[in-house]
């Protein structure tokens, strides 16, 4: 992004740097910023202003989509602390979590193959995944919103964010399966 903007996304929205952020406040600030910088406000402005406004608007959109998503927000906050969650550089995962993943996948296969109750099975599987997701969100918030968090705790948060990545992938596969049944 070639904007002269150097502060982080939280500063951009003028909100506190917390994982458990106020979603409504974030949305309000997002809209207010777009009201100022969206290209529609510059349709009759000079070419350069139009280009700049498009860059700012894209940055604001990027910041909003990052902060409003639980997994991306976690990754972003860790990156701000110099911790990378790059999956390709890291293959170590909690074995217990991996086993649970395999089970979820088996459940998904069973549900899809079911002839009479596929929809119900998929729905209950989705609830299970959502619960696992929420549990991790809470734990991440506890760590990241504690300014005195130790390195080992941050490492735990990093693990949890990676687990969110796996869970959101299976969640979208469940939705794909639901769609295929429709």
């Amino acid at each position, binding site marked *: 992004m070639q*904007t002269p903007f150097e502060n982080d996304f939280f500063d951009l929205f003028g909100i506190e740097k917390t994982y458990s952020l106020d979603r409504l406040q974030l949305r309000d600030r997002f809209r207010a910023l777009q009201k100022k910088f969206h290209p529609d406000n510059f349709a009759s*402005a000079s070419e350069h202003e139009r280009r700049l406004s498009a860059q700012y608007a894209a940055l604001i959109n990027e910041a909003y989509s990052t902060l409003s998503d639980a997994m991306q927000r976690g990754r972003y906050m860790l990156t701000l602390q110099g911790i990378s969650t790059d999956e390709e550089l890291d293959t170590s995962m909690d074995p217990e979590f991996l086993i649970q993943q395999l089970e979820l996948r088996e459940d998904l296969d069973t549900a899809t193959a079911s002839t009479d109750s596929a929809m119900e099975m998929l729905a209950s599987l989705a609830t299970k995944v959502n619960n696992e997701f929420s549990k991790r969100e809470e734990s991440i918030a506890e760590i990241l919103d504690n300014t005195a968090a130790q390195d080992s705790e941050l490492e735990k948060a990093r693990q949890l964010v990676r687990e969110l990545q796996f869970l959101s992938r299976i969640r979208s596969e469940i939705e794909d399966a639901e769609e295929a049944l429709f």
Partner: protein
Amino acid sequence: MALLQISEPGKSTNPHEHRLAVGIDLGTTNSLVATVRSGEVKVLLDQEGRSLLPSVVHFRKDGDPQIGYPALEAIVNDPMNTIASAKRMIGRKTADIKSLRDQLPYNFDDESANVPRIITADGPRSAIEVSAEILTALKKRAEASLGGELNGVVITVPAYFDDAQRQATKDAARLAGLNVMRLLNEPTAAAIAYGLDQGSEGIYAIYDLGGGTFDVSILRLNKGVFEVLATAGDSALGGDDMDRLIAEWILDDIDDDGLSKDSYFLRQTMLAAREAKEALTDNDSTNINLSLPDGTIREIMLDRNTMNGLIAPVIDKTLLPCKRSLRDAGLQKDDIDAIVMVGGSTRVLSVKDKVEEFFSKKLYTDVDPDQVVAVGAAIQADILVGNRSADDMLLLDVIPLSLGIEIMGGMVEKIIPRNATIPVTRAQEFTTYKDGQTAMSIHVVQGERELVSDCRSLARFELREIPPMAAGSARIKVSFKVDADGLLSVSASESTTGVETHIDVKPSYGLTDEEIEQMLRDSIAHAEEDIHARQLAEQQVEAERVILALESALAVDGDKFLNEAEKSDLISAMEELKRLSDGGDADAIKRAINDLNELSEMFAARRMDASIRSVMAGHNINEFSD
């Protein structure tokens, strides 16, 4: 100009002048043009007082093409030279059109061309040119009715149109000599028109079933902000498909192989099918009268239940996108407050029934479904041209289909996911896979599938002069930029060694600049219009826009961000442009515009910078928490 126009108090950013802007709904079956006058939206009528312009063009060997109602009559008499539903073909490759082929009576020229053309009595014509004819007719209607040249237009497109279809629509507008301020998604335009007025807040689904396209968009409305949360659809599904199913039923009933191959008779049957469908909105049954080639009249009775059975597959096909849009918005049916019904095909009763049953929510049908999109486009045009402050309303739209590039094994790596809010910029790094590799082929695709072959190919280009190094050590950054029209541009650069190669591409399934120039020359010769007069007028309009923008910026911030010398440089460049603009040299005006734009760059940058810094510094933070 016949009458002086006075804008509504407080609505105009430039009170001494009302600028002419219209919204155009370029539809599959019908097109419309609307404008805002004295604060009210008016759909502009033709000389006979009709608002709709049938999207049909009849090309003739001698004489100008006929557009609209006269062309409609030619559909049956001269089907091969009368092009209807061009919107179904625009921005599509020959292969895509082939799948529509059995539905189209036309002959196409070069099968391998990027832009397929139909052979007509007046030479080969692409869907882009056909659309340009329709746009030209609407432009003439608007200029006659408003008494002056248009400063700018907003043209609506189906939300589900891909990049190539959008680009092609923009090309058509260029051919018609229109200044497109924005391509606006049809469901979003409808939402604006419904006012979903300042007072209304909540989450709405816009169900838009037109003649040949289907869109569904989920919008959240809050304090004048229209935020599209997700969109889905099918850009080749609509009332035409219902007509065809009914026509097939009629042909089965007649049971005559010879007739089923007679293009004249097929057109007649399609029209009869459409009439029957329309009649069954108000009646339980209707009689279809067809005159057979042997002169006899065949009368067939169709009742509503039978028709509902025939067209059910079309309606059912719209429900999956409804479900997907909810999913992408992260919502349940219960979260939706109401459904706005848009498009002529939503007049069909069983469409309303099925949509109401699917969402279990109230349907809004009170604005004319044919006009609602043009009305919304007119309101947006009025804001963009500067007649009304943009503070009143803001649209945040999304990209309908994911964008990505081809990676090893014919797989797609998505770079921008569908339903990302636009404008959006994303970059991703790739690397070489062979030692000493100095070039890389980049293939840009659009779609949701994992395999390149299942996605829409948008552009291919090569990045050359990569310095030779070991496999995997080059860092090639590919950036995707989608603007507020939903149009993509791609750039790539290699930066490992500090040597930067940079390339910008526009998707390739539109017309090249040269082709557009040539067509412009041809069409202008055709219309016996003077190409110089037209270029001059275009440059004068642009000069006026640039001058107005700069004058108002100088009035507000001139002393704040510019020293005396900078200011006087800018003003003298502006005076020079004003002087040239009164003369007759289009090229000189163009150069002066470029000079002025260059000179004002740092002024623009300083203003923007200050603007975002003031927000960041918290000076204005209160205004955000209203």
